Structures are given as structure tokens and as C-alpha cells.
């Protein structure tokens, strides 16, 4: 029987190798950043590195079990998986414990579990399940609405915790949507929106004597108008050449223009109105603005200094005082990349980024080689989620993104995220192992 062929020969060892490498790197860097650079208590159960050892062990056991279970099981239980996750996300809002202002954790004895880390897997499975069953794919409005809802329900629940970082990760699923047929214009619109966002923030703080209205207004508007016009014209010039399209182009131009204005006005008011002071400050300091609070850029300044102090080759394992002696906040979880930067330098950090990119690209390769739509969509969802974590986390440490607390998958200390990501990838590997004989 084909189906009894050993699973070990069919799974993708490249992915496993990369993941295990990251787990090992995680342990080394957690050890370094929490040991006080003197001696490492590798096997002390109370030390952070000791706990990480245990979590790595648990994650590997869960991965092994996952790889043994047939893929069909995950597909059939997708809805249950998803619903259980939603229930947990609701439960955590009711009975969870509050850490750092967010109600994201279940406290069970001495360990804490974060259901939002597992909800990503459920959402990815559910999305794959829905899209693979619908024939019209995402171009069908009903399917689009349904799939957006699948993403938005857990995202909204997590927003209530509140945990903006994890919500942003769900936004990354746009790559999976795009691969399944979402218009490329949406990607471009998101890109334009990002540019507009940055321009609004950059210019929003300044005021300007507006030429026509004659009142003190934000110089931002001028920039925004130029920017949005530029992006629209770039998109629409091909249409303008054909006369019969001109009316449509004119309409689109006006709509885009109005939307751009509305968007940046929205950004401006939500920055002022909705965000908390420290969140606003984190965004402003990212652009080097003076917010009148000398400690506002403490995290980012120290993180950048830690990475910078690594130089070409780094200070060596256990030799990084910035991370070991508490200058960098959360140095073993969200800012774990600082330790890599400080102790392994430019060369080590570049290797780490290259390995991470290899993992992401490898998952794209796995996704593309599927005959099953479910596995492909799931694979893209996995790649999107991992990519968003990578983008936000490393971007934050390098001072390219605001301080948003989300872990770097497989590297950051913490059991929930490690087990969650392991499960996410392990399911993909099992489904991939079955690609040759399963037709779904």
C-alpha cells in the first residue's frame, strides 16, 4: 500500500531543518540574553532558557504527533478547530488574566497560555477549507465576504484584548487572498495606503498656511494630494489612451482622490483620537519626531544601539552587555533579534535573515507543489502569517516599524507561540507529505 510508505521519507526535511535551527538559535540567544553574561543555567527549570528547553521538547512532541495523524483528520475537523479557537478567544476575554494591559492569557498553574497564538492555525485552516470548497473562488463576492469574515471574527476578538500586533498579523493573509485571485489593485491600494499613512504622520505634525482656504491646516494635505494623484495616474495612463475608457478613468480618478483624502483624514483623526499616548509616541518616534518625552524612544533607541554595537562580527556568544544587562526591554521575547545583532554582528544577522527568508520561500514552494487546493491555500496562509511576524518583529528591532509586541517565530521565548507555530508548520508538512496520493 502506498499509504503505508514511511512518513519519514515523505516529509520535507528542509523545512524541519530550518525550524529546528531556529529553535536552537532561540535557545542560545535566550540563554545569552537572560544569563547576565556570566554563567548559563541551561537546565535550571526556573530559568528562562530551561523553560524554553521544555517548550521546545513539548513542541517537538506535538510536531511528531501531528506528523503521524493523517491530514484528512485536520481537514475534517477544521470547523471544530476554528470554533474551539473562537470560543477560547471569547473565554480569554472573560476569564483571562491581564498581563501588560492586555487580557490575552489563560493562567493554568504556573504556566500561561495565549489562545491567540493557536487561533492563527485555526483561521488558516478555516480559510483554506472555505476557499477550497467554493468554485467561484475569491472572485465570487459571497465567498470573499465569507472569507473576510473568517479572518475578521478572531481578529476582532483579539482586538478586544487588545493586542494590535496579532491583529496586524491577520492582515498578512492578504497574500493568501491575492494568490487565490484577489485583485492586484488591492495590494497596490494597500501599498498606497501605507505610503499615505507615512506621509500623513510625517507631515501631520507640521502646520501650514493653506493657500486657498487661508487657514492653519496640515501641510500633509498638499503631500497627500500629490501622492495619491501620482499613484492613480501611474495606474490609469494605459486606460486614458483609449478614448472610450476616458469617462471610466475620470470616475476612478475622482473616487481614488476622494478615498485618499478620506483615508488620510481618517488616519489623522484616529491617530489623534483612538490611539493611546504611548502608541502615538511609538509611531512618532519611529519617524524621529520629538514627542516631548525623552523616554518615548527608550526601547527603540536601545534596541538599535544593541544591534549596532555588534558591528561586523558581533561580540560573541554571551558577550553582549546591552541585551544581557537589561538595557534592551523584553530581550528574550519580542526583542530577541537584538541579541543576534549584538552577539553575532552583521554577518550573523544577515545569515539569520537569509535563513528566515529561505524558510518563507520554501513554504511557498511547498504550497505551489500541491495538487490539493486546501493544502496550497493553507500553505500560503502559513507563509503569510510567518512573514508578518518576521516583518513586524525584525522591522521593530531595526527601527523600521513601530514597537509592536509580537514574537519572532521559533526564536522568541514563550511556550504558546512556539507550540502554535510548530503546529501551524507541522500540519502543513503532514499535508505536504500526502500530496502525491491525495486528491482533494
Amino acid at each position: 500500500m502506498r499509504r503505508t510508505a514511511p512518513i519519514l521519507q515523505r516529509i520535507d526535511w528542509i523545512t524541519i531543518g530550518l525550524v529546528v535551527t531556529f529553535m536552537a538559535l532561540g535557545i542560545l540567544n535566550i540563554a545569552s540574553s537572560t544569563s547576565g553574561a556570566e554563567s548559563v543555567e541551561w537546565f535550571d527549570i526556573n530559568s528562562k532558557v530551561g523553560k524554553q528547553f521544555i517548550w521546545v521538547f513539548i513542541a517537538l512532541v506535538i510536531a511528531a504527533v501531528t506528523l503521524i495523524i493523517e491530514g484528512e483528520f485536520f481537514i475534517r475537523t477544521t470547523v471544530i478547530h476554528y470554533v474551539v479557537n473562537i470560543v477560547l478567544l471569547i473565554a480569554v476575554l472573560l476569564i483571562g488574566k491581564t498581563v501588560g494591559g492586555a487580557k490575552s492569557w489563560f493562567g493554568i498553574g504556573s504556566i500561561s497560555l495565549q489562545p491567540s497564538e493557536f487561533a492563527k492555525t485555526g483561521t488558516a485552516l478555516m480559510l483554506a477549507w472555505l476557499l477550497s470548497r467554493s468554485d467561484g473562488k475569491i472572485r465570487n463576492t459571497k465567498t470573499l465576504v465569507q472569507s473576510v469574515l473568517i479572518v475578521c471574527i478572531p481578529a476582532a476578538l483579539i482586538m478586544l484584548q487588545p493586542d494590535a500586533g496579532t491583529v496586524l498579523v491577520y492582515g498578512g493573509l492578504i497574500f493568501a487572498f491575492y494568490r487565490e485571485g484577489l485583485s492586484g489593485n488591492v495590494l497596490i491600494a494597500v501599498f498606497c495606503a501605507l505610503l499615505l499613512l507615512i506621509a500623513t504622520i510625517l507631515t501631520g505634525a507640521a502646520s501650514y498656511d493653506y493657500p486657498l482656504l487661508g487657514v492653519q491646516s496640515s501641510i500633509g494635505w498638499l503631500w497627500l494630494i500629490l501622492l495619491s494623484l501620482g499613484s492613480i495616474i501611474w495606474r490609469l495612463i494605459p486606460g486614458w489612451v483609449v478614448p472610450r475608457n476616458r469617462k471610466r478613468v475620470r470616475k476612478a480618478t475622482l473616487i481614488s482622490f476622494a478615498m485618499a483624502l478620506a483615508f488620510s483624514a481618517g488616519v489623522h483623526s484616529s491617530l489623534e483620537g483612538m490611539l493611546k499616548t504611548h502608541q502615538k509616541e511609538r509611531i512618532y518616534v519611529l519617524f524621529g519626531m520629538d514627542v516631548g518625552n525623552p523616554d518615548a524612544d527608550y526601547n527603540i533607541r536601545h534596541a538599535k544601539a544593541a544591534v549596532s554595537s555588534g558591528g561586523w562580527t558581533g561580540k560573541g556568544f554571551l558577550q553582549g552587555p546591552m541585551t544581557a544587562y537589561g538595557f534592551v526591554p523584553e530581550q528574550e521575547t519580542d526583542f530577541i533579534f537584538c541579541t543576534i545583532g549584538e552577539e553575532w554582528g552583521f554577518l550573523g544577522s544577515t545569515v539569520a535573515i537569509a535563513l528566515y527568508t529561505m524558510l518563507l520561500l520554501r513554504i511557498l514552494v511547498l504550497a505551489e507543489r500541491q495538487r490539493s487546493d486546501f493544502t496550497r491555500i493553507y500553505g500560503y496562509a502559513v507563509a503569510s502569517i510567518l512573514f508578518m511576524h518576521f516583518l513586524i518583529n525584525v522591522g521593530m528591532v531595526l527601527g523600521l516599524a513601530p514597537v509592536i509586541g509580537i514574537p519572532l517565530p521559533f526564536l522568541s521565548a514563550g511556550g504558546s507561540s512556539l507550540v502554535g507555530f510548530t503546529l501551524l508548520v507541522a500540519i502543513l508538512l503532514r499535508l505536504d507529505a500526502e500530496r502525491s496520493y491525495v486528491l482533494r
Partner: protein
Amino acid sequence: MNLKERQWIIGAIFLLIAFIFIGRLAQLQIFSSDLQDYAARLTQEREVLDPARGLMFDRNGELILDNKAGYDILFTPRLCQLAGGMDTLALAKLIDLSPREIHKAIRRAITYATYRPSSIRKQMPASEYAAIAGELWRFPGIQSRRRSIRTNESGLASHLLGEYREVDRDDIESNLGYRLGDYKGKSGLELQWESELKGSRGVKFHLVDVRNDYRQSAQKGALDSMPKPGEDLTLTLNMQLQAYGEKIMQGKRGSIVAIEPQSGEVLAVVSAPSYGTDLLTGRMRGTHYDSLLRDPNKPLFNRTMRATYRPGSIFKMIQGLIALDQGLISSQTRIPCNRSVIGCHGGHTNDNLEDAIIHSCNPYFHEVMRRMIQPRTASNIFAEARDGLSSWTTAIQRFGLGTDLGGNFPGLRSGSVPDTTLYDKLYGRKRWAYSTIYSISIGEGELLTTPLHMANLAATLANRGEFRTPHVIQSVGSNGKPVGTDSLIQTGIPPELFEPIINAMNAVTESSEGTAPLARVPGIKVCGKTGTVQDSKGNHSVFIAFAPADNPKIALSVYVENAGAGGDWAAPIASLMMEKYLMGDVQQTDKELRVIRATYPFANAIK
């Protein structure tokens, strides 16, 4: 576009982000030296290791200035704040500060740095510290730091040794590397030899954590350097003699300077009244300093080098020597005691040089100096006096008078030997002749000398015409005497011409006519000369001497202010000093008792 091709776009986005990150890493890690400096500043703390200051020993290796263990009490405001404050009044009581002082100290500490320790009680002696050390833990933010305290236990030679105390604003701004809270020599030898005594600082770089606690040494100590201790100074002083001098000068105002004639080494420098060096270290300095400053006897005034007196009769010996050297008189030349030109005392009438010195005959030296300055051979008496004076000035200066004596003592005043410029200024050019200035012939007038100059004169006489520049440093570390501190200076007068002078000095103490029988030392041939310097509050009693006459081992000058004639007080003090130095022990106990009991104001001179 085929949906499958969209994988390339997504993959390209992933790669693009990776390249952006790598570019950013390069920017941060390779091209941002300011961020790297910032990280180094955060994580490295430079600890300055103070070297041990050089000690001072006397010529026999007896310790004069020592570094004793002491402690500064330090306060870190932030630590105290984190622990929720402390009972400052209890702390004040414990470390012996008034409530006002401690609040002032705490305010100062907060202004300086909230997270760095600053001292609120400096230089607590080890004995005092031991009693309270066990209690300090009760006070959060309070630590102690070991620090040496400069101590001069004997309290001797304070004027010479000088002060060692906290730097002031000028020192900090002087670019010599002093920082707030450092100590340095501020006067005397402590100041003069500061750069040798202080040694050089060591540095230790620590890695610190975010609470600024030391964790380990940075770069495994590669950047660290050890402190280099300061050089010890060995002085030429004999502390036994110094102590004895200070003992017998107590209650008086005046000075003793003793020199070993052969070497120019200063054996003792006593300036009375004195004070203990240790009074001016530590936190009571202000109080002590004020009361010393207000004391009418001026204990802070270093009389051995800063006080200037007219040399009086003692000067006559130099006059005689120069005249002999110029051939204007011989040792047998007799000059009548013509009291119509200048007053005199005693029953002599027609003395030769030796007798004139013993009798301190004023007309004799008036005439001797006239021959030098106004031989009445030129037609213009003003021009003649001017020429005569200028060669006279040069001859006097060869004895060190009016000079800095080789410059070994920065605080030494040169005194004054009048020259033509001075008189031109006083009277106008060609407006003065010998008749205008004759009072200098007997050591009065514009002549001024310090006790050190006079002791050096005694040494010059003892050496028969030459002296080594007086100095007080025997060796710096293991380097011996600093170069150029004991140059041999010749007066240019042949030794044989000194015989009548030395005979006269011997007779001053030993002959029945002599003015200083109290200067005798049993069993030793003493040469001396009294001086009596006029002063509105009573004459100063002055005596210079050397002994033994044929092989001089000690030469000295003694000044006792407002005490009367030279033979009454200065001479017996000189006698006791010579006996102490030459015999090791003083047998003349009656003399000693009389001297010790005598205190200012002096009753009329008793023989």
C-alpha cells in the same frame, strides 16, 4: 495574469523585505558609530583607581606624613528613593553631622546626580567608621568608600609640609586632570612636589547593567591600567631636632632654622607659634582655619621664610669680610670709636676687627663701609657713592642675601639688599651719598633678610666662604637629590680672611666680654653672633651660630620676636638646639627649663 504566476510576486516581496533588512543592518552595524558609542557609554563605566600618595620621611627614615585609612560616606539619591526614603536625622546623628549639614549634603548630592554616589561626609577616620559601619545598612542609598587620609601625627613642621586638601574651582579648571572631590597639595612641600607625590591614576572599565551596577570587567581587562603610587619624599629634616625646636619655641613668636653647613641640608625649620597639620584636613578645617587666621600671633605665618627682619649687628661680620677682601682694612686695623657719627655702647675706644665684632662697635663699621662706598677720591661724591654701592651690593649678594638662595623654597622671600636703583628711586639720581645711606653699614636701614637667609649666612661663615644652596629634599623616590638643588656657591673671599671673624664669633660666646655667654654648650666650641632688631613692640632677640668651630656640623639662626637682646633668649635657644643635635641629649636642664617657661609677652630680659 495566471494566478500561479502570482507566487513570483509574493516571493519577490519576501525577498525585497529581506534585502531592506540586510541594508538596514549594514547601516546600523557598519556605518553607525554614534549608536555604537552610545551603546558603549551605556554599558561601560570607567572607574578611576586613585594611587597611594607618596609619603614623607625625615633624614633618618622616620615617617612624617602618612596615609591613614579613612572612609567617605556616600549617598545615592535614586537608591534611597527606590527604597522609600530614610530617616535622615538618625543618619545625621550616626555620622556626626548637624541636621542642617545633612540636608545641605543631600540636596547637593541630588543636584550632582541622582543615580551616582556622592559623598556626604568626607574623610571619616577609620576608628570612627568602625563604630558605625554596622549600622549603615539601615539607610538605603548609603555606602562607604575607603579613602586615605593624610596625617601628620606629630604635628611638626606644618608650615614646611603644607596643606593637602580638596581641590577648588581653579584647580578643576587648570586642565591638570583634577576633578571635583579630588585632593591635592595646596601649599608647602605638598604643593611643590605635587606631581611627584600624587602618582598616576589607574582606570578600570566595568560592564554595568541597567541599574549601573558593576557586573564584570570590560574586554577582560584589556583597557584597564593599574594606579602608579606617588614617589616618597625623604626630607633632610631631623625630626628629633625639629620636635625639640618646636618644644622649646612654644609660647613664643619666632623661628629656628638649622642647616648642616657642609651639605646645605636643612635640619630643622621651626616657625612659632605653629599648628598641627591635621587641624587643616578633614571637615573641621573651616572652623580651625578661621580661628588660626584670627589669632593675633599669626600661627599660619611661616616665619622661617616669609618674615623679613633687619639683620642688625650680625651684618657687621659681612661688612668686615668684604673690607678685608678689598684690602681696605687688615685684621689688625684699628678704628677709633667715634660716637659723634653714630651711637655705640660699651667701654671700648679703638678696636681692631675682632674686637669690633665682639663689642659690636657701630663707628668701626660706619668707617669700614665709608671706605668701600665713599673713599673720597673722586670729585663728585654722588657718583662715587653710586659706584661704591653697586660693587658693595654685588659682594653682599654673594652671601645669598637678597636672593632666592637657589630657588629650592618657592615660598621664600628674597629680602632686600639695597642697590643703586632703590636709592635712585627713594632719593633721586645723584641726590644721595654715603651720608644718606650709612645706616645700612650696621645692618639697619633698607636691609631685610629672612631667618633662612641668616641660617645660610651662619653656614657660609662655618664653611669659610662658600655654601651649598639650602634644600630640604634628600631624595625623591629612589632618585636621590633633584638635580641642581645643592649647587656650591662661592663668596669669592679667601678662607684665611674668615679667621678673625670666627675668632670673634667664638669670643662672643666664650670670652667674658662676649654678648652671648648663654650660647655656650659644655664641651663644644661654639661660634655665634647676637643681633638685636629694633621693633616698636620690643626688640627682637636674634642669634646666629655654628658648632663645633673647627668642624662645623650645624649652623643656625634663631629669632624670638619682642624678647629683648639677642643674648638673652635667642642665644640659649641656639645653645640647646646645638646640644640636642651634637650630643643627642640636653644636659643643660636649667637653661632648658628657663627657655620653655618663657612665654610672650616677655618680662624684662633677665640674665
